[in-house]
């Protein structure tokens, strides 16, 4: 007989979780109702900085259906401080962050009091009966002014608005950026501003805390149920084994749900005080005000080079806005970028210095890419400017500097070892897909004819570090936890398979991709695999989903667990077939005796034999399951070339993306449909940063982009068609060859778009347009450019 392989890995299967996610007929946290459940509403500060001189909730208690109301002062001795798991330096200034403000508020939207009622409307109505007297203070809003002498202080007891300064300097290893600058033939010095963004996940956050008899069950729309469980135990004094955290289906996160939130802890305190289940579901307005924001930093960059285009060094000075407190991983976000300011290029000198600063704004923390988009933006913008300075095509100046295929593994100036990549191949493909030469010719024609609509082409040749993260490196960077991931695989008596993963999907499609991997590893049907996740009772161990880590770390753990199961099944099958395990090969979904392929046993056969346990080989336990934990030795490094062609109406400043090409190399691909979806979503968010989105606080510290009317994420109708293609250079550092794709689009797209706009407007003397590049800003840049 012929044995055929029906490979699932690599197939563009539709996602098995989508029907329930798209119809909403599932357990979103807010869909869950418990017997006797109460509803909480939160009163938030209208001021950016104020002392609370008095606060009285007694009138709220008299409102209909109200069960309880309390303030920060009422829980001051039990509420503790929200955690920062990444104190990046030894001397970091790390202020307490109470879930409920006690005597001062430090950002617009900070929680000051709560009402718990029998229904949500009554809770919201009763908020209006709470009487708070504030003594407003001058807020600290500007990053540079915050660092100046005499600035008001966000935390007066700390004596400074500076949280930390973190430095990397290649001079320690021999080559310094000052030496490179002294010898430089070309110096590109630029300031870029990463505007503040709001993650804008689709499902607002929601949490339910059910206080059972001495044990707590917590449902939360979070990315990190496992990490949350640890912190719930540490922060509330509840023994960890009495805390069960469930992240049911979660509607997006983008890093925005990688947080231990005030709301989660306040809901816990309410449920503990009252002794009944309490739910808090935020409104979109709450999300905008109080969920952490992203980006928000000033980047001063100095790129040095020789006239032949060879880059000799880069020096980067950041001021990063932490907001009013330190978020869970907030201080570390710019540090993740520190390893990426060299990108795909080889040069000997690099200095990075980041100062984290407190302001009277909501905290910043991880947002899709977390540090890497900012780094890529600064580098790729500067590379374009270098090309212009030298009269070199932007592709050519990059090519002269990037690491060649044969130079891998390559140790970068930032100290990482890139295992693999093929920048020439990805770029060649992207250029062909865009029709680069033809568009350049059209650009020249439009320039020559003075067309009011100018054409620009933007390039972004990016890499990123995925697969967060090797635990030893995290330790060296002072991160509190590790970066391993775990998976368990159990084959049920009828041959169906349950997988327990420590990753916590919130839209990524793990159930589908994990099923494809298991189907191939164990030779079972795709539909016969069930993936369990997000409940610390079934999945007791894991480090959750962020940083493009789930497949690149959790996927490897899954493969290793599958192989343990397969090895055991092989022993059982050999016993059943009365041969040596070495005589068996695993093909076409079954163990077959070499040379006699009809003598075969499937995993299901072995599973039932193990279940019956009537005749097992000596020393084999009656179970067909295994788990594995994988701690990566290094990161993975996807890369790619994104090209964007824009038309700029020079009379109105309007930018239209005419064509967007994304060629990504994410290593081996489990499911190309999911990969393409990730690229589309990431590119959409990258374009959004370039053109549309900005969180704005006015001079009083009031968030004025508090709804989607003013904070404008693009809809499908605002976005171009995206040509997404791939090259495939497998990772060499683990058995699956995958690299990660969750953040690539968001990292690559922003500089591609802005470079395109600036490219279109070079004849007008334009060198920069601040993000987001709104029509008015483009128009003003043209007017300020000095050319006619």
């Amino acid at each position, binding site marked *: 007989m012929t044995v055929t392989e029906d490979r699932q890995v690599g197939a563009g299967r539709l996602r098995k979780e989508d029907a329930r996610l798209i119809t909403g007929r599932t357990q979103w946290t807010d869909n869950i109702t418990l017997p006797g459940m109460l509803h909480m509403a939160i009163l938030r500060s209208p001021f950016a900085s104020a002392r609370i001189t008095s606060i009285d909730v007694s009138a709220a208690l008299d409102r209909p259906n109200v069960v309880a109301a309390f303030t920060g002062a009422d829980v001051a001795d039990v509420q503790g401080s929200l955690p920062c798991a990444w104190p990046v330096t030894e001397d970091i200034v790390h202020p307490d962050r109470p879930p409920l403000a006690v005597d001062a508020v430090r950002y617009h939207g900070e929680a000051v009091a709560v009402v718990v009622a029998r229904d949500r409307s009554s809770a919201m109505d009763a908020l209006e009966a709470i009487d708070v007297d504030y003594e407003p203070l001058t807020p600290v809003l500007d990053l540079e002014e915050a660092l100046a002498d005499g600035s008001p202080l966000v935390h007066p007891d700390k004596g400074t608005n500076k949280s930390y300064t973190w430095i990397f300097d290649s001079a320690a290893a021999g080559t310094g950026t000052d030496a490179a600058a002294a010898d430089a033939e070309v110096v590109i010095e630029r300031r870029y501003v990463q505007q503040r963004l709001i993650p804008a996940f689709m499902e607002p956050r929601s949490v339910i805390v059910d206080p059972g008899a001495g044990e707590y069950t917590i449902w939360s729309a979070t990315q990190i149920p496992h990490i949350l469980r640890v912190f719930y135990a540490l922060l509330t004094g509840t023994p960890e084994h009495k805390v069960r955290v469930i992240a049911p289906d979660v509607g997006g996160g983008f890093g925005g749900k990688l947080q231990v939130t005030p709301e989660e802890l306040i809901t816990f305190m309410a449920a503990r005080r009252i002794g009944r289940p309490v739910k808090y579901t935020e409104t979109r307005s709450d999300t905008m005000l109080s969920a952490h924001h992203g980006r928000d930093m000033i980047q001063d960059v100095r790129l040095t080079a020789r006239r032949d285009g060879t880059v000799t060094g880069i020096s980067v000075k950041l001021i990063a806005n932490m907001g009013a407190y330190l978020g869970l991983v907030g201080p570390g976000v710019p540090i993740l970028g520190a390893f990426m300011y060299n990108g795909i290029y080889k040069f000997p000198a690099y200095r990075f210095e980041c100062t984290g600063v407190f302001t009277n704004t909501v905290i910043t923390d991880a947002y899709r890419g977390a540090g890497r988009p900012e780094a890529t933006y600064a580098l790729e913008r500067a590379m374009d400017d270098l090309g212009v300075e030298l009269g070199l095509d932007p592709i050519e100046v990059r090519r002269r500097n990037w690491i060649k295929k044969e130079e891998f593994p390559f140790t970068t100036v930032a100290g990482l070892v890139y295992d693999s990549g093929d920048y020439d191949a990805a770029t060649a493909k992207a250029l062909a897909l865009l029709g680069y030469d033809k568009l350049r010719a059209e650009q020249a024609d439009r320039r020559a004819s003075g067309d009011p609509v100018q054409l620009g082409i933007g390039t972004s040749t990016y890499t990123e570090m995925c697969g967060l993260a090797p635990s030893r490196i995290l330790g060296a960077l002072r991160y509190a936890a590790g970066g391993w991931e775990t998976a368990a695989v159990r084959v049920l008596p009828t041959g169906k398979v349950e997988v327990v993963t420590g990753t916590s999907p919130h839209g990524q499609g793990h159930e589908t991709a994990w099923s494809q991997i298991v189907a191939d590893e164990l030779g079972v049907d795709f539909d016969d695999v069930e993936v369990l996740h997000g409940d610390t009772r079934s999945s007791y161990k894991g480090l959750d989903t962020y940083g493009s880590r789930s497949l690149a770390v959790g996927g490897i753990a899954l493969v290793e667990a599958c192989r343990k199961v397969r090895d055991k099944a092989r022993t059982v099958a050999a016993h059943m077939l009365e041969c040596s395990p070495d005589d068996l090969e695993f093909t076409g979904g079954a163990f077959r005796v070499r040379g006699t392929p009809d003598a075969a046993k499937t995993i299901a056969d072995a599973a039932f034999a193990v279940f019956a346990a009537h005749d097992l080989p000596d020393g084999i336990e009656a179970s067909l399951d295994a788990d594995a934990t994988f701690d990566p030795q290094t990161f993975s490094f996807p890369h790619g070339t994104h090209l964007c062609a824009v038309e700029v109406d020079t*009379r*109105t400043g309007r930018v239209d993306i005419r064509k967007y090409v994304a060629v990504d190399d994410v290593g081996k691909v489990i499911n190309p449909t999911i990969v393409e979806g990730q690229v589309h979503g990431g590119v959409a968010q990258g374009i959004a940063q370039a053109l549309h989105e900005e969180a*704005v606080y006015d001079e009083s510290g009031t968030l004025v982009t508090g709804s989607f009317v*003013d904070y404008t994420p693009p*809809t499908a109708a*605002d976005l171009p068609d995206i040509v997404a293609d791939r090259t495939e250079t497998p990772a060499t550092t683990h058995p699956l060859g995958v690299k990660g794709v969750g953040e690539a689009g968001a990292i690559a797209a922003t500089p591609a778009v802005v470079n395109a706009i600036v490219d279109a407007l070079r004849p007008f003397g334009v060198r920069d347009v601040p993000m987001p590049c709104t*029509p008015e800003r483009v128009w003003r840049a043209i007017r300020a450019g000095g050319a006619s």
Partner: protein
Amino acid sequence: MIPVAFDYLRASSVDEAVAALAGAGEDAKILAGGQSLLPVLRLRLSAPSLLVDLGGVPELRGVREEGDSLVIGAMTTHDEVSTSPLVRQFAPLLATMAATIGDRQVRHRGTLGGSLSHADPAADMPAAAAAVEARYVLAGPNGRRVVPASDFAVDLFTTALGDDEVLVEVQVPKLEGWGSHYEKFHRMVQAWAIVGVAAMVRRDDGAIASARVTLTNMGPTALRATALEQALAGCAADRAAIEQACAVAAEGTSPRDDLTASAEYRRHLVQVLAGRAVAAAAGV
């Protein structure tokens, strides 16, 4: 968010609605399509004690001919306005502009009367009604009165409607032989206009015989660009001449500075957009 509690009356006739409004005073609000009112209620920016829903009044919905006019019921949705054969024949600018509003869902809920009565300077239909010189029919406790477009919008979110009056319908003079166009400039496809310019042009061979130009979001109400209309009368129907005339497009306007755009930028933009709108309406 959840609105503050309110009473709700689904009126079955205009008279019933008027009586309810008269009884409730300023605390009552009319609910038409709800596309502006409901967000305001949900954000608790407004807390009326009574909502009078006009959705159950059949006479308020639909388009009919009455002599030299089209009559469009106040509860006619933007989608119905944009697809009505009568509107497309006799007042195509209304159909064009209604089709640019929000998204498909909004156009199926939002109504012409609701938009005109809300009088948001960033909304499209007030400028459309001004361009076609619509007349507004208002019903109150003392019967009905007719108000010309120029007198209906008074100020930001303020109209000639009394607290106890309901906008019943608008009368639109039938016009044929005019070209029309709307240039709507917005950052997001579904957003309000930063600036919009509606133009209607009647040509006399190579020249513009007559032009009407109205502006969205260039002042507290939709504005008629009278200086530009005068400059266009008799102007050659070619792009250069039109653009030259449009240098006065911002005259008499008072645009605001806000998060989306500065007043200065709006004054610049209106000239560019007027040039494009008039040229398109003139067929050049």
